[in-house]
């Protein structure tokens, strides 16, 4: 028996283009006091990152699989295929890297290997939607002699900051020294540089505040004014908005604001006809604020953008956009009396109406949601940062 443990020390969330580092520890769990006969051997272990794509049959019409490319999935169990046995197709993978070969472990012995790979920038972000799923995994395949390959899958989350992949590491070679004795710690520098650049860009995109005011009116008149201070947000931020109902002419009984994502299958992949065809657009609500606001003149809301959600993106097959979806329940009669008239006749008590005929109106305001620091996202993901398997 050999235990293989993979640990992503920084957490399971990465920005595309960042280097992933995973420590793989193989342990012979037998106590060291056991006899030497129980030493265990692994023929090899190899690791690879891949992105698995899966589309809902009822929503996405994918072109028939390319038959010119032979299905390389052989029966033999000796080929390392990280996506073996998974649904969908592997749309992206890094070259496999060998971690070790012919490893022998005495009882109680344990060895650690570090696997490091740069996450490809050209892929989609991790996303689990209604129509499509993009799932990233680090797969560690191990094989004992004369046994089938065992796969240990470590789920990853990849955030994509668009525009980052076009930027190249500044090659300051022109001015740089050329003595071969200068230690170049390029990869580390590049990694932190990338994270820094991503941070800067996100900061620049999301820190700018300016007031946007929207007059909300139904067919009969003005309901109120909606104010929002930003249009671009990062994951984990709060969408803060204000609602001024005091100046409206139409009474609003209730409003709700939902922070939603709209997942839309691109036209060429939409499934047109047939039974059981689901709509090509689906909405998911991530946060919602609902309020009865009949006697409220000013109110505000703050909706947290969950760290576990996917920022907006667009691939050839699907696009994901964020929006605020409003629903207003407004009085159908224009002059709904909310306060007693000033010149009140006797008797002196006044009570509000029991029933108010209402209509509902909705309104959508698109917003942009960008990723945030992957470390921050990792913090928010509870659960172990290690995966393990016993062979």
């Amino acid at each position: 028996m050999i235990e293989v443990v993979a640990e992503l020390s920084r957490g399971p969330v990465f920005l595309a283009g960042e280097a992933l580092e995973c420590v793989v520890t193989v342990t012979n769990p037998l106590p060291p006091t056991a006899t030497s006969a129980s030493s265990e051997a692994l023929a090899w272990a190899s690791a690879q990152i891949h992105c698995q794509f899966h589309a809902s049959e009822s929503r996405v019409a994918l072109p028939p699989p390319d038959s010119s490319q032979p299905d390389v999935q052989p029966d033999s169990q000796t080929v390392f295929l990280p996506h073996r046995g998974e649904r969908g197709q592997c749309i992206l993978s890094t070259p496999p890297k060998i971690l070790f070969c012919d490893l022998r472990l005495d009882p109680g012995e344990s060895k650690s290997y570090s696997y490091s790979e740069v996450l490809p920038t050209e892929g989609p972000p991790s996303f689990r939607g209604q129509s499509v799923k993009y799932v990233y995994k680090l797969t560690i395949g191990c094989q004992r002699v004369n046994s089938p390959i065992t796969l240990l899958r470590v789920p990853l989350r990849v955030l994509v900051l668009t525009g980052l992949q076009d930027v190249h590491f500044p090659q300051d070679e022109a001015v740089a020294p050329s003595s071969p004795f200068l230690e170049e710690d390029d990869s580390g520098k590049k990694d932190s540089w990338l994270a820094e650049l991503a941070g800067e860009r996100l900061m620049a995109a999301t820190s700018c505040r300016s007031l946007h005011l929207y007059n909300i009116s139904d067919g009969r008149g003005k309901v109120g004014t909606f104010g929002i201070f930003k249009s671009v947000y990062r994951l984990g931020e709060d969408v803060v908005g204000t609602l001024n109902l005091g100046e409206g002419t139409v009474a609003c009984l209730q409003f709700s604001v939902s922070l939603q994502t709209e997942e839309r299958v691109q036209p060429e992949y939409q499934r047109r006809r047939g039974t059981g065809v689901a709509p090509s657009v689906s909405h998911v609500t991530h946060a919602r604020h609902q309020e009865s606001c009949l006697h409220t003149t000013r109110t505000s809301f703050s909706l947290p953008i969950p760290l576990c959600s996917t920022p907006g993106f667009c691939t050839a097959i699907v696009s994901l956009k964020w929006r605020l979806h409003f629903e207003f329940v407004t009085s159908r009669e224009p002059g709904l009396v909310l306060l007693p008239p000033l010149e009140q006749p006797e008797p002196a008590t006044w009570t509000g109406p029991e029933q108010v005929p209402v209509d509902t109106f909705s309104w959508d305001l698109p917003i942009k949601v960008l990723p945030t620091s992957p470390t921050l996202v990792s913090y928010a993901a509870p659960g172990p940062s290690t995966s393990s398997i016993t062979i």
Partner: protein
Amino acid sequence: MYFLSGWPKRLLCAPRSPAEAPLHVQSDPRRAFFAVLAPARLSIWYSRPSVLIVTYKEPAKSSTQFGSYKQAEWRPDSTMIAVSTANGYILFFHITSSRGDKYLYEPVYPKGSPQMKGIPHFKEEHCAPALNLEMKKILDLQAPIMSLQSVLEDLLVATSDGLLHLIHWEGMTNGRKAINLSTVPFSVDLQSSRVGSFLGFADVHIKDMEYCATLDGFAVVFNDGKVGFITPVSSRFTAEQLHGVWPQDVIDGTCVAVNNKYRLMAFGCASGCVQVYTIDNTTGAMLLSHKLELTAKQYPDIWNKTGAVKLIRWSPDNSAVIVTWEYGGLSLWSVFGAQLICTLGGDFAYRSDGTKKDPLKINSMSWGAEGYHLWVISGLGSQHTQIETDLRSTVKEPSILLFQFIKSVLTVNPCMSNQEQVLLQGEDRLYLNCGEASQAQNPKYSSARAERMPRHEKSPFADGGLEAPGLSTLLGHRHWHVVQISSTYLESNWPIRFSAIDKLGQNIAVAGKFGFAHYSLLTKKWKLFGNITQEQNMIVTGGLAWWDDFMVLACYNLSDCQEELRIYLRTSNLDNAFAHVTKAPMETLLLSVFRDMVVVFRADCSICLYSIERKSDGSNTTASVQVLQEVSMSRYIPHPFLVVSVTLTSVSTENGISLKMPQQARDAESIMLNLAGQLIMMQRDRSGPQIREKDSHPNQRKLLPFCPPVVLAQSVENVWTTCRANKQKRHLLEALWLSCGGAGMKVWLPLFPRDHRKPHSFLSQRIMLPFHINIYPLAVLFEDALVLGAVNDTLLYDSLYTRSSAREQLEVLFPFCVVERTSQIYLHHILRQLLVRNLGEQALLLAQSCAALPYFPHVLELMLHEVLEEEATSREPIPDPLLPTVAKFITEFPLFLQTVVHCARKTEYALWNYLFAAVGNPKDLFEECLMAQDLDTAASYLIILQNMEVPAVSRQHATLLFNTALEQGKWDLCRHMIRFLKAIGSGESETPPSTPTSQEPSSSGGFEFFRNRSISLSQSAENVPPGKFGLQKTLSMPTGPSGKRWSKDSECAENMYIDMMLWRHARRLLEEVRLKDLGCFAAQLGFELISWLCKERTRAARVDNFVVALKRLHKDFLWPLPIIPASSISSPFKNGKCRAVGEQMLKSQSADPFITPEMDAGISNIQRSQSWLSNIGPTHRDTDRASSPGPQMQDAFLSPLSNKGDECSIGSATDLTESSSVVDGDWTMVDENFSTLSLTQSELEHISMELASKGPHKSQVQLRYLLHIFMEAGCLDWCVVIGLILRESSVVSQLLGIAQSSEMDGEMLQNIKSGLQAVDRWASTDCPGYKPFLNIIKPQLQKLSEITEELVQPDTFQPVTVGKTPEQTSPRAEENRGSCSHGSISQSEPGSNNVVSRKEEDTTQADEEEPLQDGAYDCSVS
């Protein structure tokens, strides 16, 4: 605790008219309805949704008779409201709900609309109940009414004529009673005299009063500013039986509010401070508990200008109090006086452009349900309303605002203090701190963090902030995990009353009005009761807690009218069918879980302990509870409502030293009970006959009775203990942590004898230490020695509103409030306290157990810093200074030197003398650093020395450090030291540093940063004709006579001084044949290697022993010694792990024709390999290393393969894995692997054989670089050595060419010749692998020796060629003149050939130098 959230909400108000402006708000006892008074109007509002239900307008006629409305008071059952008016009337209104459950504002959707129609309880949740309001009675009290209080079934009214009227809600007229205050005796306490003084004069009346049920009496404020407490001597209120106590020192009271749970009376004073009193249980006297005061430090411009305290309101759960002043502003304090919010400072008081805002004035306020809202009637004080002429200004107008709050779950569910998470609950969402807390429980993580920390190196001369590196990453993470409570649950069960999180922080449970729901942070899903009737039939009464994945809750069963204790499993459906239900005899008020025990506190003041056990029969898993023990507390607890929290702990007064089995996990040793702020401990009574616990079954074992209670501390808000155990951190884990509001925190720390010696009998085993922290503590991380808390933060949005009409928008008036998580280290406080108490040994034990924490250095530094600041700046002499003790304490840690210097650099210079008087002479400390090889710290001390000592001393030390840094290759430090030494020099000189003169373009001498050098290198490569050795570099060399000029200029002198040191170091490196170090040194410090080498050509740059040099280079550059493949005896494959592939390879190797020692074959060999490299890419460097033979070579592979620059990571693994797999040996497996890459066996063997004789690529590049440098500088003997190691015959041919040119140094040639002979001898005996190559270069050597022969003879002749080399004006040139080569000899025929080839070589090399690419150095000579 309470935190403001977002912006306040504004509610609709009547259009402006003086009679309609709201002035008072009063909630009903259930906080579902709010009565809002305007001068002539009473309105009843519903709390959720906040809508107006009914309103009554006083007709104008009667309004003038009654005067304007003033105050309102609800009858406890919410069926009546009493309103007092200005002219002394009380109006009684009946509130009745309409028949047939009518609701208001029910939305009627158009037909066919999909809106919620059929949802049960829709109306209840979304509509307000319809109420009727009817004035029933009018009572004329003949005097202005000062205060109204509902007391049980009576209404107590204080009037300005000094009377207290007791009016029965029902029979108002006949149940009326009046007490004349002047007949009530007042005294300081109840003991001293039964007959106290009377108020004495007639016109004293009560200004404000509030009834305190748990003290059974009134807190009153008199119109003359005196305050007091009136209590009935017997059970009924009559004048004869009332008695008053008062504190003598309060004479400016303005208002009062009582806290029933903590039995506190808060009196507002005209000075602006709030004095909080409690009643002494034994004497009955009023005792000052604490004060709520703004400090001058925090609010310098407002602290004494707030005006009188206007209103005080305790929160519904009694854990916080809100205070407002005449001048305006809101402030929120915890029950024992920790300040949470004050709107008189910061963003509340100032706009973003820095101008001051008018503070919000509050006329009346009332808390909403569960404290989520505060209803506020805002506006200017009544006296100003008329003056205000600006009618556009809506803000000045009274309006109803709703402030929203978020509170800590600890306020209502104190069992949560077992947890290490911060959980806050808002009206519709929960805030959970994410990240570290859960990891903190895993020791692996904390150690990993600790390891990561010190690696973060700071530049020793960069001024660091107070934050230690890495600390910010640990503490600075302030993000919240926000969980929105399921709206389905919330709609029918608002408000949320309790919430709890499980141990791992992955599951949350909430309980509202009815039932409960839970949420998993992993699946992000809520689980609600499947059967809504079950939900609506239970009310959680006594809190809820997690036990593993079970929820334990105390509830009331509405259908059976039964108190119950229920346990639900998280993973099963939320249904009573899966619950374990135990009937309880009494209402449960509090509940908590300790390990496998549930402790409940009941309304009959009894504590019941249950054991909880997991039971699984098949698929069905449940947990069941069994009563273990019941303890009646009614003797000690006057009222069950006073109990704030009950917990079981393992804390006891004994530390287990005397216990039989100290190793065992400690049991539930004691009950901690917070009784109105008094922390009471009851330990198990071990004095009785001991029961051998292991003999009996754990479930049936008799539990020990409890001792009588002991009071541990006063004014306690929260208590934290842990049930975990950690032998390494016993101090921290077995301690009891208390938060005491304004008094900070306290820790009840166990004291352990050192080395398990017998404890002193006189030494207490525990000690209570108070300490101050700046945050409000919400969770204690035991192992991490951290306290987590939260603070309000504010964001201003006012700058976004530019229109002037928007000035009064709420978003402009108020900042947006958010809650931020904070954390704080407290260890330094505790250590210091222990040191103060002469418990240094304990402090040491504690500190050592925490030394692995990442911020431990920071702790020491903080402690030193604080003590230093305090004692050094103290005005009076300190009789017993602590600083020496602290200093001595820190010496115990290896961080001592670092701590001292960091502390020093963060304090003013003026305090340094004081500091170093305590910790020791900085010179000694500096030397200690050097001895400890801690150069960075030593560098920090230099700054100190520079300021405290004369320049000579600091320079001397700097030199010392510089040399050590050079020796150790700390290049960054070297660069800093160079700058530092220069700075000292320039500071020393009296005259301003002169600018370099134009004659000295390179006055920086041989010391230039490498950028310049690399430029000059390429210049020389391009422009200098071959054979001239780039001697124009002499420009930068200080020539003999110019030395005097240097000394004139102090800066230049410094440069000179530094150069001398650099030269000396370089010389040493060269003499010790440390070429690699020399290369690094030159590259890192920009040392002008070529010019220096030119100078040293015949001195240090000579090779004295070729063999030693060769060997050393092989070793330093990890270059394998060549082997003769034919002699398989030396083959590495013979030893040990030889595999089939290896064998094969070996056979083919020996048969390989390439290896035959022939010159041409060798060259083609190189070419072949080159082509292979380009074909297959650099991957095969792996192969090369893999197959490179020799056990002595193993070391080479273990070296840091940091050549990440080249793109060589095809297929296999990264560098790290590579090296780690090398550690594991078995490279032959890798070979096998490579054979899959469609290489034929022979090709592979050839490549591997070829590459086997080479070292790492990087070494090759470096060696070639050095070769180039030496060639430039004319150090030909070094060139030969490097040529040998690289096995390049071209070097020798080149050499030959140079030797035949005019400038060749005969002595050098002689040296080369003898050296090569030595190498040859050595190769023959020790290293036959060199033989083939030596044979290749034999012809050239032959020529060389011929030249040498020739040279030796003309050596005696007169030198001819001096004039020909005008550049050689240096003294060195003169020395060498004697051995200078003859120009005529260089014209021999083969020589000219070689010159040409060298020229080519030179240019190719120069070209290749820049890109520095793999394989580019494989030059071929044809």
